[in-house]
């Protein structure tokens, strides 16, 4: 198990690493209640790749996303974004990093209710006092297919539309990496498919790097690579996954956990 994790953490020659972790640990609680949400994770995510992170509930997927997206600080170990060591940064720099280099899509409640869809999409840029590049803006809007909804507020949009707006926001600042924690978890299959193909397209057409947490083998099948977590450790990975191969792997892992 250990040797696998190490090989997985190594950068491959043909792709550059967008983000990686080194012996990443995250502990919650103390004494009896101590939980090793992450128990020494070494993993790299490559530029221009769409990666899925899967694993049983409580296996540490969200914790990993949060630590990598500079939303939370690890107990031990390091997180690199490109060449930047996050542990060396202060809150202000982390904030700027989130604003400029990282995109994030949550499972729900992704949008500021007082702002329109367009304003929400531009939010990270306008916080930084920048205007979006008009051609890129058009490209993103066309990709997410929201042109006729730009003036609407979140409560006037369906769940799928809201998540597409959130994706558009994550893409708008051309971040080095986008983290999405179960972006389709609350959506029906049609809306989910809309969001997933949108993410897929932004990887294919614009070389975006995306890491997505999901429980759904169908969603995982949209990605280039699936990483499996169990009990805070990376336990396996699949390249070019299909629904079937993912299901098979999941079954294997469950069986191993039972044993």
């Amino acid at each position, binding site marked *: 198990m250990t040797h696998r994790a190490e090989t997985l953490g190594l950068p491959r020659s043909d792709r550059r690493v967008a983000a990686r972790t080194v012996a990443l640990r995250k502990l919650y609680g103390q004494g009896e209640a101590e939980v090793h949400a992450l128990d020494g994770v070494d993993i790299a995510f490559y530029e221009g790749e769409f990666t899925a992170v899967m694993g049983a509930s409580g296996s540490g997927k969200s914790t990993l996303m*949060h630590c990598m*997206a500079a*939303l*939370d600080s690890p107990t031990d170990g390091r997180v690199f974004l490109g060449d930047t060591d996050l542990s060396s940064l202060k*809150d*202000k720099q982390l*904030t*700027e990093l*989130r*604003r*400029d280099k990282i995109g*994030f899509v*949550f499972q729900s*409640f*992704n*949008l*500021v*209710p*007082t*702002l329109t869809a367009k*304003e929400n999409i531009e*939010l*990270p840029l*306008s*916080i*930084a*006092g920048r205007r979006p590049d008009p051609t890129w803006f058009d490209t993103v809007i066309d990709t997410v297919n929201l042109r006729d909804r730009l003036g609407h507020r979140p*409560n006037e949009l369906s769940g799928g539309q809201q998540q597409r707006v959130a994706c558009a*926001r994550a893409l708008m600042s051309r971040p080095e990496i986008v983290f999405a924690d179960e972006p389709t978890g609350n959506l029906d299959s049609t809306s989910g498919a809309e969001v997933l193909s949108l993410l897929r397209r932004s990887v294919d057409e614009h070389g975006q790097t995306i890491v997505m947490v999901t429980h759904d083998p169908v969603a995982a099948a949209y990605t280039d690579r699936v990483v499996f977590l169990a009990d805070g450790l990376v336990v396996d990975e699949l390249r070019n996954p299909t629904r079937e191969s993912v299901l098979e792997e999941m079954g294997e892992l469950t069986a191993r956990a039972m044993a």
Partner: protein
Amino acid sequence: MRKVTLRNLVAHKVRLFLSAFAIVLGVAFVSGSFIFTDAMGSAFSGIISGSTADVEIAPEGANEFDSAPDGRTIPDSVVADLEQLDEAAEVDPWNQVQAMYVVGEDGKVVGGNGPPSFAFTDTDTRALTGRKITTYVAGDRPTGTGEIAMDVATAEKGDHQVGDTVQLVTPGDPPTLEVELVGLVEFGEGSLGGATLTLWDGQALQELFFDGERAWSGISLTAAEGVSQQQLRDAAAEVLPEGVTARTGDDMVEDNEEGLQKILGFLNTFLLVFATVAMVVGTYLIINTFSILVAQRSRELALLRAIGASRRQVNRSVLTEALVIGIVGSTLGLGIGFLLAQGLRALFGTIGLDLSTAEFSIEPRTVLVSYLVGIGVTMVAAYLPARRASRIPPVAAMRDDVALPEASLRRRLIIGTVLLVAGIGLMIAGFQVENGTTGLTMIGVGMLSILVGVSLMSPVIGRPLVALLGATYRRTFGTVGQLAAQNSQRNPRRTAATASALMIGLALVSLMSVLGASASASTDKALKAAITSQFIVSNVVGSPFSPNIAEQIRDVDGIEAVAQFRQAPAEVKRSRVFVGASDPDDLAAASDFPVAVGSMTDLAEGAAIITPEAAEEQDLAIGDEFQMNFPSGPVDLTVVGVFGVNASVPANYLVSLDTFEQAGLAPLDSFLFVEKTEAADADAVRADVDEILKDLPTVTLQDPGEFAEQQKEQIDFFLNIIYALLGLAVIIAILGIVNTLALSVIERTREIGLLRAVGLSRRQLRRMVRLESVIVAVLGAVLGVLMGVAFGIALQRAIADEGIDVLAIPWDRLLVFVGLAALVGVLAAVLPARRAARLDVLRAISTE
């Protein structure tokens, strides 16, 4: 259900504490007013009963509660007649001189502006309390014209010891005296409330201030064993000459107490008006807190309903919370009110009212009123939110976005308009009412109704202003500004309620500013018209001074004329009027009051020149005879002239100095109009007059401009006291902003987490909260200032014929208010903003 209520109280203790604080402050104001006026009442009751003998004899009318300084006396023969009475154990004749000031070692008048200063004959009279009115604690009795005793408190304040030479400012001739302090006395009841008292040998006082005549201001009688006050009074009345009356001590005390209670009642009402304002503002804070708490808990309340709690139970649960807050707040408020009363004592101490030995006690009535008001207001304020809470449908528990059922804006508009119109009607009606108190109450209630009406409508009225601010924000602060502006409009009612609290406070502050500025401007104008002489000599504390000063100034080189001007209240046909007295020739020479009909020179004894207003009011014309009632009795006068319309005489009726003396008024000058000769150098004349006045710390020579400034200072002083009293309401309003913001921050925790996650820095977040706060504060301030100006204009118009005939709107000051409000907004946001910035991003996002 009770458990839920208690848990909630504990869980929301900070927010509830803030709203309880509004109750605490309001109740503190109410109880403080009562405690303070009670203390004042007991102090003055002590003074009254401690200085009144079994029977008091005085010239008719001089024994009344509000009698003016009186120069009339009782012949010495009366004393001998009284001493023949078996019923009288002691007969103590005495003289009294008012406006006898003691100058302290620091050269300043002891006591300053407020309390009276007396000189009295040293006697051993026993008061009703059984104690001597004064008891020697050091030194000896004064003998001869060069010695005095004084009360301990005055000696302490003036830093005088027995044996010191003390300077006095007298109302007689000479205007200053240097005497030796030979004894110190204590007042039987402890404190004189800041009044200064000097005691003299009986003959010495008569020699100095009563032309050496052996005549008395009054006589105190002590009853013999077994003789009642009534018996003694009746016996004394037998031997008294006409024009001299005897009254029993009990009767006088009762009379004085009545007058005292009336004054204290006014003071109490005055303070309670401000307490009410604070309470109304506090009500907004409580309504808002409860509304927000209910909104935030709506999911939980819906769940309670879903699992079987009845509407009544939900309603009662919220109201129970209010009850607990009301009880806790009232209790704390009562305690703080006691402290506040001490603060008021210090405040009144600055104007010379010494209550250092007064007893501050909490009467049962104070406790009762405090709890009634505190609990009542909380319950009433919580009623609407509680009712709304009970209307939350159980199904809301299953929904994600719970929208509370709210009264529509239209309904608010309608109710607001009704209140507004009713308020305007009440105000207009109040102006027409003759009875002062009823009229004022109507005007006050009308204003309150208008304010509440406007606050109900303010979500609509305030829209353009908020839009304007929002646009400015967007341009200046970009996205952060836009977010702030939009946040302030998410709950227009909440914003409006918070802003309204400030609006009410500021409306009253602005109203007072407008009235103050108008009063200043009117005074300025009136004085410019009234003081046509080069200089005016006046007493800083407003009390009259020795006519000897006029004599001395007349002898100064380069003085053309000095007109003595005296003032006194009197009655003509039952209505109170102000009478002035002067020498017609001097007045004509030293000032310029155009007489339209008749002539100034006709002003002989028994003649009067009246203002056109007085002529119209009393239907008097030249040649008419009428009766003027002085405390000593009626005087018949003939109208010999009517002033021109633009003559600003500082009195409605002008009579001669002889008439005043005939009316028994003490020969004391209120002003001197001083005119120099054309050739004389103003500075030189001034220096010479100042030389005369240098030993008289209270009397000054000023040019009209300086005099006006001094008068305006008094207006400002009064204004500042009112600002201080309104300050409490403003503080509560600011607390309201803090509270609302803090609650909003809690409510938007998730959103704040999201904003932070997508890259909003802590600084930007803090700014966002701050900007929102400023919008609320500025909205309240602008509405408040506008309302205040409107009220100010209305009131000024209404009282234009009572002297405030110039409308002045101090825009600069009002703008400062708005600026300060913006600053307050920034300050109010400090804690909520810090709290928002401190939120942990992840935890914020994952909160429900």
